[in-house]
């Protein structure tokens, strides 16, 4: 195998020198020209016609060439669910695993192989229900993984049961009188789990989706990208207010780091802190409109933004909520190995086996 998998040798750890962003610093690049077609496989795509997954797949395939990474150094790992078929359609290395466990499998891969760009494709049931534990630990560990969470607020593959992001009272096959449990807000959850990069985007807005993917790939550590994805079979129109040209500008708050948080068709509304500690809507011209600071080490503001979500999508932030730099697990793991080698020398098997109290029998 590539010896970058062993003692952290391989391309320079410090990516800033060659202009390559932190998250991609160790991944071999190619000068060969790539197009979206290079990332397509010969497998027939089998999502329902009209499914939001198609748009995400196309957006990812047309975005990857701009990174200039060697295709063989990209890996997509998924769990189970409609979205988890994704790796079969990507002409990279891929691993379609078991329900909820993709972050765990990807963690081992990313920790063992710093020269790989490892992506996790998951859904709301996969990531937040059966795999909730792995997701939160992947986030806190900050290992070099990009997690795309396709949130359609429903179980598609099992034919339409409510999911952990479904709104309360959802009528589904398993909840004919309405679901009883409160949903997770994936952004709030990720921020609570110490995530260093948290963003939300939409399947239907390719430009926005790709800009978020770009930032996520450049980020060093775990990036969580929630993608609102329409399941036109079991939960059609779930995100309609954010897509309907008539209202979307009124209700979508596009977050941009360093910019005042304003929205509305004519940018006439803005956000300011409320006395209660959250956000409230004010006129864009108010003096106390908050400037978005995704790099703030304190996640409180990002969390307050995530709490603007409402079942009716009256004011929904999209974009990058949080993007902070902290050491990654895989990098620290390599450093410990390097340190051990530097201090004690490379391991010597004969010396190891013969260590401790020994005696000789002639």
């Amino acid at each position, binding site marked *: *195998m*590539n010896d*970058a*998998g*062993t*003692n952290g040798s391989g391309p320079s750890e410090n990516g800033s020198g060659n202009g390559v962003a932190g998250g991609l610093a160790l991944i071999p690049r190619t000068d060969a020209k790539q197009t979206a077609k290079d990332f397509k*496989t*010969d497998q027939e795509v089998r999502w329902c016609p009209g499914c939001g997954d198609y748009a995400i797949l196309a957006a990812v395939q047309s975005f990857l060439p701009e990174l200039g990474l*060697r*295709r*063989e*150094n*990209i890996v997509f790992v998924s769990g*189970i669910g409609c979205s988890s078929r994704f*790796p*079969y359609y*990507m*002409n990279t*290395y*891929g*691993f*379609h695993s*078991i329900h909820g*466990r993709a972050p*765990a*499998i990807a*963690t*081992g*891969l*990313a*920790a*063992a*192989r710093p*020269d*790989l760009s490892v992506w996790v494709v998951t859904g709301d049931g996969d990531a937040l229900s059966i795999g909730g*534990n*792995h997701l939160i*630990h992947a986030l806190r560990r900050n290992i070099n993984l990009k997690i795309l969470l396709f949130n359609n607020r429903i179980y598609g593959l099992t034919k339409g049961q409510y999911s952990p992001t479904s709104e309360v009272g959802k009528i589904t096959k398993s909840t004919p009188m309405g679901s009883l449990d409160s949903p997770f807000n994936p952004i709030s959850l990720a921020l609570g789990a110490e995530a260093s990069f948290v963003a939300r985007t939409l399947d239907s807005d390719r430009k926005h989706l790709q800009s978020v993917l770009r930032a996520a790939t450049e980020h060093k550590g775990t990036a969580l990208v929630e993608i609102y994805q329409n399941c036109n079979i079991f939960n059609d129109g779930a995100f309609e207010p954010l897509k309907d040209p008539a209202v979307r500008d009124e209700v979508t708050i596009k977050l941009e780091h360093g910019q005042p948080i304003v929205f509305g068709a004519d940018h006439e509304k803005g956000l300011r802190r409320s006395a209660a500690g959250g956000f409230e809507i004010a006129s864009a011209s108010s003096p106390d409109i908050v400037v978005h600071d995704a790099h703030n080490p304190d996640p409180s503001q990002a969390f307050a933004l995530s709490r603007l979500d409402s079942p009716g999508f009256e004011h929904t932030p999209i974009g990058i909520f949080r993007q902070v730099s902290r050491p990654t697990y895989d990098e620290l*793991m390599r450093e*410990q*190995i390097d340190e*051990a*080698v530097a*201090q*004690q*020398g*490379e*391991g010597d*098997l*004969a010396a190891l*086996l*013969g*260590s*401790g*109290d*020994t*005696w*000789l*029998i*002639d």
Partner: protein
Amino acid sequence: MTKQVQQLDRVIIRFAGDSGDGMQLTGDRFTQETASFGNDLSTFPNFPAEIRAPAGTLPGVSSFQLHFADHDILTPGDAPNVLVAMNPAALMANIGDLPRGADLIVNIDEFTKRNLAKVGYATNPIEDDSLSAYRVYPVALTSMTVKALEEFDISKKDAERAKNMFALGLLSWLYHRPTDATVGFLEQKFAKKPEIMKANIAAFRAGWNYGETTEAFSVSYEVKPAKLESGHYRNITGNMALAYGLIAASRQSGLPLFLGSYPITPASDILHELSKHKRFGVRTFQAEDEIAGVGAALGASFGGALGVTTTSGPGMTLKSETIGLGVAVELPLIVCDIQRAGPSTGMPTKTEQADLLQALYGRNGEAPVPVIAPQSPNDCFTSAIEAARIAVKYRTPVILLSDGYLANGSEPWQIPDVTTLPKIEPGFTTTKTAESADEADEAFEPFKRDPNTLARPWAVPGTPGLEHRIGGLEKADGTGNISYDPNNHDLMVRLRQAKIDGIANDIPPLEPDDPRGPDGTGAKVLVLGWGSTYGAIAAAVRRVRKSGGQVAQAHLRHLNPFPANIAEVLKSYDRVLVPEINLGQLALLIKGKFLIDVISYNRVRGFPFKAEELAGVIQDVIDSE
């Protein structure tokens, strides 16, 4: 005063005390002294799952048994010749195992009214005649230790805690053990607390001197070194040997070792040990749960590492789904199950062999996995390398079934010459192998099997041109594309099975130990065992033979597949006796696969078999012939 020295060929000592009394440490040290003296030995630590059960109570008793001899021995011994009881609870918990005439050294300082009442002694057994069957040595261990340490600037509590070193000193004198290594050990252990260090060394020496000067002990004992094969030796536990075996396998294969693990008794020591060896490029990942531990290991294997996970029964249950995925995607993976008493949480610190059927069949679908069981603490080293060899060669998860007894028990280990260790060839696929020019343009086929081993190619990410996708969905033979074709599924199920079954031709045949009788014939009764019962069965077989009985022994290291000649071997005996620390799991397999009737002997007490007990069972079977 010169004292009498008596020669013995073997001794079994049991140290017993409160969990807080340091009995495991005392036993370990005595073992090291004994090992460096050159005796053969075998140990059996036995401790409660609770870290500190209430002091002085029966559930809090911790013990360490050591068997050492001037000849080669196989077990930690059935019953102690000497019991060191640090308090009434330790006496009460262990006296039942002590044969008449045995030596009993008790710490009388702890035999207070209160402590006696705690365990329900109405009268002091040291003072009434309830212990008249034994040679009782009441020693004021605590107060003598405190007195010996008067001049040190330490608390009374610290002084009292050194009583285990006093006891160790006394026993070291009594059995002529070398003491330098223990002094060195204490110097290192307490390097940061010099006063405590000096006090412990002083307590250890005081114990030795007490033995030499007191009239209470008029005789000391000598057990000559054993005549073991020449070479360098060290003492090693099963868990340590297993960890070393994994590092060796990593070196021998050139694959970096990746351990994904979640702490669980009695497997955690492997995680602890491996985490110390980062200089070997070992990556240890303490996962959020058992599932993530094995998941990360499989992910690392996908990336070309030697992926390993370590656990015990409850963790095995959680890992089942991922092991099944490993079967489906056909990647190397080593799963170490250090069995303990179950079901459920069971008895975490007690041993058992009841995960065999789980290892073989505990997955959905037809999901065959090779299963290997080490037979002694030493053998954990060799078995780990063998597990890696099979995992890598056949691209499959392999389950290594050790248990609590092997994990914590120890014995002398002849340190192997690393140049003699087997090489493991990873055999990565790095280019498309096109058999014809037409195929050169075709996609890489990740499930095109090697015709001999039926193993699939292992092409790791980073290899250009071999990009491919794997997963838990059924795959088309060859291409690996998703397939729901009925005939393809039938074929793939059979191919996966045939691959594992074929390993039978790649492992040593079963060779029974069956010395010919005086008339040149072999035994009629065969004892068949697996895993950690090897020592007890072998010791029992020796006893039976010594008393004139004829019996053969065969021991299985490979439980799946079985050695190719197993049926032939079993059929050549009139009776096959299968002792197991479960309710007959191997017996069920033998009966089911070969239609051979076997006699089961089963005990599930959380303890290893005793040689004497098995000898009786074997004799009964011989006599019923």
